[in-house]
């Protein structure tokens, strides 16, 4: 099932430390993705974006001089873009829009706009019942999930650090990666880096960089006439679980499970049919919880699954092939770049990090404090 919708363009804006504005980076992302598709700004009649302003899609439409027939600015942290793919596929299938651009860009590193406390909203229950204790947001929540996970399953910080070690290995193959050229990362490097919120060190945490990207969607029918090999949207699913740090009873269980089940069922595929996985790696623990939720292994087995180089280049499980948020780029809402990398892998454009013969890719976004979860399944055939 797809409704016959494909991703026909994908691109990054400038990454790293740019000194550029959000709208400047958005313009790069959108115009590059359209050029990749062989389309023009005037072809766009649907916009989905977030992180621009309170009226994000409206702001971007205004900036581009467009009056779109369809927009979406759902705020769901890093998973918003996987949700946008679902909404866009439905809008295109329903005839409300023909060419949709999904984009994000941030200048958070240049602008020094990120706070360890997160964004405070005084009218929420969290402001009364959680913020007064001064948890790092979102870091302390993931740290508590990691602490619980390691305790319950008798695992070690060193085993968890492999997520970051493997991400660096992939980044060394990606010239766009922030850590490209930084050399390999060892388990000891991760364990010995600055402790932020135990058991997570700076090495367990994603980068804080500028960056972003865009993907262009249209009908599979129109996609046939465009510049690049279409990447078909085969399935999608999502779960929304919590804003509070106390809403989820078990910190080791992620809403990703339901999202992935829905997406795979819609695609008519099993997890074993997926060749490339691009999953949100805000923190090392995020990946462990997500791999289990996706059904790649049972509860408590993720750190065994990733051991022995299994998720490094050449390993058995092609995971976060760009280098991920940990070593490639993390502009705050990284989910759009999961889609960009999945598209490149399915087109065979990934250079030294190409997974040979990849036919199905899964992108999984996670937002907030394991709050929002969205999965997209993509394929080279409809």
């Amino acid at each position: 099932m797809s409704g016959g919708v494909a991703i026909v363009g994908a691109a990054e804006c400038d990454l790293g430390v740019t000194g550029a504005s959000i709208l400047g980076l958005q313009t790069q992302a959108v115009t590059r993705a359209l050029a990749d598709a062989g389309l023009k700004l005037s072809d766009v009649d649907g916009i989905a974006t977030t992180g621009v302003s309170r009226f994000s899609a409206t702001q971007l439409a205004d900036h581009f001089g467009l009056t779109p027939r369809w927009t979406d600015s759902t705020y769901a942290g890093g998973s918003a873009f996987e949700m946008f793919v679902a909404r866009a596929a439905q809008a295109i299938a329903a005839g409300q829009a023909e060419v949709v651009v999904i984009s994000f860009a941030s200048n958070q590193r240049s602008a020094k706009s990120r706070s360890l406390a997160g964004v405070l909203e005084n009218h929420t229950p969290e402001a009364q019942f959680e913020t007064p204790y001064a948890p790092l947001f979102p870091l302390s929540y993931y740290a508590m999930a990691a602490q619980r996970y390691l305790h319950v399953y008798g695992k070690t910080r060193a085993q968890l650090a492999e997520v970051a070690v493997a991400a660096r290995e992939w980044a060394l193959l990606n010239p766009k990666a922030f850590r490209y050229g930084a050399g390999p990362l060892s388990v000891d490097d991760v364990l010995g880096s600055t402790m932020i919120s135990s058991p997570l060190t700076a090495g367990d945490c994603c980068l804080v960089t500028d960056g972003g990207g865009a993907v262009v969607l249209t009908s599979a029918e129109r996609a046939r006439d465009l510049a690049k090999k279409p990447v078909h949207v085969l399935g999608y699913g999502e779960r929304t679980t919590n804003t509070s740090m106390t809403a989820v009873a078990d910190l080791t269980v992620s809403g990703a499970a339901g999202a992935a089940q829905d997406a795979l069922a819609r695609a008519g595929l099993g997890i074993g049919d997926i060749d490339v996985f691009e999953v949100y790696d805000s923190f090392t623990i995020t990946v462990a919880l997500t791999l289990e939720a996706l059904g790649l292994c049972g509860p408590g087995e993720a750190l065994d699954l990733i051991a022995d180089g299994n998720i490094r280049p050449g390993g058995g499980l092609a995971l976060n092939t760009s280098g991920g948020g940990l070593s490639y780029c993390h502009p705050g809402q990284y989910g759009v770049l999961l889609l960009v990398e999945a598209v490149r892998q399915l087109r065979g454009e990934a250079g030294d990090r190409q997974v040979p013969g990849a036919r199905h890719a899964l992108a999984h976004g996670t937002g907030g404090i394991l709050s929002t979860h969205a999965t997209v399944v993509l394929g080279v055939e409809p």
Partner: protein
Amino acid sequence: MSAPDVPPADEITAGWWDATREHRLVVQGCESCGAVQHPPRGVCTGCGETGALVWRDDTGAGVVDSFTVVHRAPRKDLAVPYVIARVRLDCGVLLLTRLEGADAQVWHIDDRVRVAWVDLPDGRALPVFTPAD
């Protein structure tokens, strides 16, 4: 911990904060289905009733569900390290809180804890947790 700024209570949370003025920990419960929940809401998440929510006095005893020692403070006026935790009260609800009264490095998941209070300048108090014995 020193007294932090806490936003004012609203019509949903006022009963919870009022009890803290007497160092009483209360939990919102539903007289219709028996569920307990935190933070307070205008509706029971167990059964959907809006008219059956009451405040139940809690013993203030619980267990550490998980915790994290914060080594890098989000604000300059905070001294590190400090311990953020999820405490599961014996009645079943989870609270986000601080663990106090012991060195930051000695805590373990499943440690038994009991409530203690940090008084706020406006007369309310903020619950934190200390070792049970």
